[in-house]
């Protein structure tokens, strides 16, 4: 095995790079489960966690009951081992993403080198402090020996050196980052899991919205808020297009949903003046660039809606931010075949038969859509993500016949 070189990186958690233990474990190894359980406990009791719901969500995801569920779902059809060393290039703008990426690598049985961003997110420090404390505990000696969390300025030289000794890379951050990192020479057996730019949308059933009780409507609104506004509509899985199923009642359903959404935003969302201006600029630009835009409605500056009289095939190129939506009503969801391509990732739904939708995606052989989940779950990252079974991809099968 090629030695791990000494590189000019800042070690945030774990010892020097050259001392890293690269002997893999099987997926869902007891050592790893014990470590993540301890991490979950530690984060859930950390006082700072109350300030950061995203840390709480990660800690909740790591709790033993959830890991046991994931392990059962993963199954034991094959004998497996981690691939070896996994290199993670985590995104700068989603504060806890590095922690999920790290956990996926761990659960698959890998040693991990995680480049964490230095974007000034306090969440990263809270999680790294918790990891460092657990690494110091002899009970987690094996996990501590296998993992390093580091920082370094953008450097193809460093990323290139690490890529040559990694058996797997998790590359977050969109097309540009992926193609840049893909250009670096890698270990011949290296598996890249690349998270490219994606596009997501939402399907709401007009009848279901009209018939929803006030309580159900409130939870729909809260779920839509979480999907869109927690990351300013910038996440790959946040919807840009809202498709209404049921043309006859779409207007009435919109008249119920959007004012409720706006009222919730007025209470819960700190709208930056620059984002209000951004949306207004985008609306004017949309008028010029998108002939299918037939009308628009502004709910103050919290929600901007552009009504499409028909769905342009390239609607994926038109995206909102901070609460800017394209809307279209249809009676026939097979219209999806006219727009869906590889970039499509998540569909969030309300009042839609998700199993039937998945079957129709498969029956039509659509080249995109990897996730069909209820409104409110768009950002719930997990071991199945972007169409990958991450634990499966990050481990290798030891086959016998």
């Amino acid at each position, binding site marked *: 095995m090629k030695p791990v070189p000494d590189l000019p990186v800042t070690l945030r958690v774990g010892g020097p790079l050259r001392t890293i233990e690269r002997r893999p474990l099987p997926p869902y190894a007891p050592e790893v489960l014990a470590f993540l359980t301890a991490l979950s406990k530690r984060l859930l009791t950390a006082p700072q966690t109350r300030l950061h719901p995203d840390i709480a969500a990660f800690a909740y995801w790591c709790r033993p009951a959830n890991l046991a569920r994931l392990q059962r779902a993963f199954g034991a059809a094959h004998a497996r081992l981690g691939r070896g060393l996994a290199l993670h290039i985590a995104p700068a703008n989603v504060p806890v993403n590095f922690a999920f990426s790290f956990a996926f690598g761990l659960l698959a049985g890998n040693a991990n080198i995680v480049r964490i961003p230095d974007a000034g997110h306090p969440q990263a420090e809270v999680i790294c402090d918790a990891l460092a404390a657990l690494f110091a505990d002899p009970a987690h000696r094996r996990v501590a020996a296998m993992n390093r969390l580091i920082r370094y300025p*953008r450097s193809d030289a460093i990323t290139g050196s690490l890529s040559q000794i990694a058996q797997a890379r998790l590359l977050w951050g969109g097309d540009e980052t992926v193609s840049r990192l893909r250009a670096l020479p890698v270990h011949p057996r290296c598996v890249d899991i690349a998270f490219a730019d994606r596009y997501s949308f939402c399907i709401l059933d007009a009848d279901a919205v009209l018939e929803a009780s006030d309580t159900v409507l409130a939870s729909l609104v809260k779920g839509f808020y979480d999907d869109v506004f927690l990351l300013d509509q*910038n996440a790959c899985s946040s919807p840009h297009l809202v498709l209404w199923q049921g043309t006859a009642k779409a207007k009435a359903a919109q008249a119920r949903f959007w004012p409720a959404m706006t009222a919730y935003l007025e209470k819960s969302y700190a709208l930056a*003046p620059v984002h209000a201006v951004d949306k207004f600029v985008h609306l004017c630009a949309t008028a010029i660039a998108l002939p299918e835009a037939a009308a628009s409605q502004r709910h103050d500056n919290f929600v901007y809606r552009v009504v499409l009289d028909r769905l342009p095939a390239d609607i994926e190129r038109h995206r909102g931010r901070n609460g800017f939506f394209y809307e279209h009503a249809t009676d026939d969801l097979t219209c999806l075949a006219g727009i869906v391509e590889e970039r499509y990732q998540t569909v969030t739904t309300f009042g839609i038969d998700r199993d039937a939708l998945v079957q129709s995606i498969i029956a039509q052989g659509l080249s995109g859509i990897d996730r069909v989940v209820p409104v409110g779950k768009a950002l719930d990252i997990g071991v199945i993500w972007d169409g990958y079974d991450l634990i499966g991809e990050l481990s290798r099968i030891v086959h016998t016949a």
Partner: protein
Amino acid sequence: MTAHALTDTNAAEDGAADPSPLAIGPWLAADPYGMTAAEKDAALSAVLRALTQHHRAACPDYARILDLLGTGENGMTHLADVPFLPVRLFKAFDLLSVPRDEVFKTMTSSGTSGQSVSRIYLDRETAALQGKVLARLMGDLLGPKRLPMLVIDSPAVLRDRNAFSARGAGILGFSLFGKDVTYALDDEMRLNLPAIEAFLARHAGERIFLFGFTFMIWQHFHRALEASGIRLPIDNGILLHGGGWKKLQDEAVDNAEFRAALGRSTGISRVVNYYGMVEQTGSIFLECEHGHLHAPIQAEVIIRDPLTFRCMEVGETGLIEVLSLLPRSYPGHALLTEDLGRIEGVDDCPCGRHGTYFSVAGRIAKAEVRGCSDTYEARS
């Protein structure tokens, strides 16, 4: 109304009767600060209504925007009803209301390196109207005669002609109101004391017109004088400056300190800030003796709530919208800026000028980018 019909307004420049609401004559003849806000609202909204129709007919992109915003021609009874465009749109799109072969001059904003710049397309008519209104406002400020002029900048700014940068265009534009135009700084932005002293000797006892950009004046003129312990005898000077306070705010220098400091280094007692932008050249907002920026009759300021875009009350801080009757060759007669400010009062400034007076509080803050992209960033 077509762009062609507008060119007849030249006939009305001496104030002769012209039925077009777009005739400039009456707006040049009147006292620039002589209308109450209510009088102006009625008179100016008739012009802006006509301009909205003109641009809708002449600029297809503008028409598309109005259609999508759901703006009709009716109900535009007040200035606040005039549809406005975000000023940033001029950075992303070439918006013209004249054929390209009638473009006489293209103005660009002075974005710092890497930023995109606004491109404002002027035909001869709009450029001429800008000049006339600016002359009217400057005449009110400086008097009927040209004054000896000291530009607090380097002549190199004009030699480096990347189109018309806002800085160069500002210097050229205001130089029309001075004579014996002399640059106070050399090519390296250092104080050119021999030139300044010779200029002051030539014009001893005369009123002097000084012009420059706020930060340049502070950094390269006031600071340099202070460092060398020189006090220039320009007590009879009137200093016009603009360009924004951002860099000076970083140094905790406000308008009062700026005035006081220049008093110490030059004796100048009349310091006049102005607020204006390349997107509405000509109809600028000048500061009065009481430190208030005033809207002249040819322009207006509206403050809008960032959360709703509704008009805000006197004293409330929000986004500044600027309106001007000048833009004919591009749809820039009502623009939402990215500056924050507030109306200080209406018709009752102690200086005696009528209309709206206001203050500018700076740019809206940039926001942190959240989301999945941009991982492999330079920071770490």
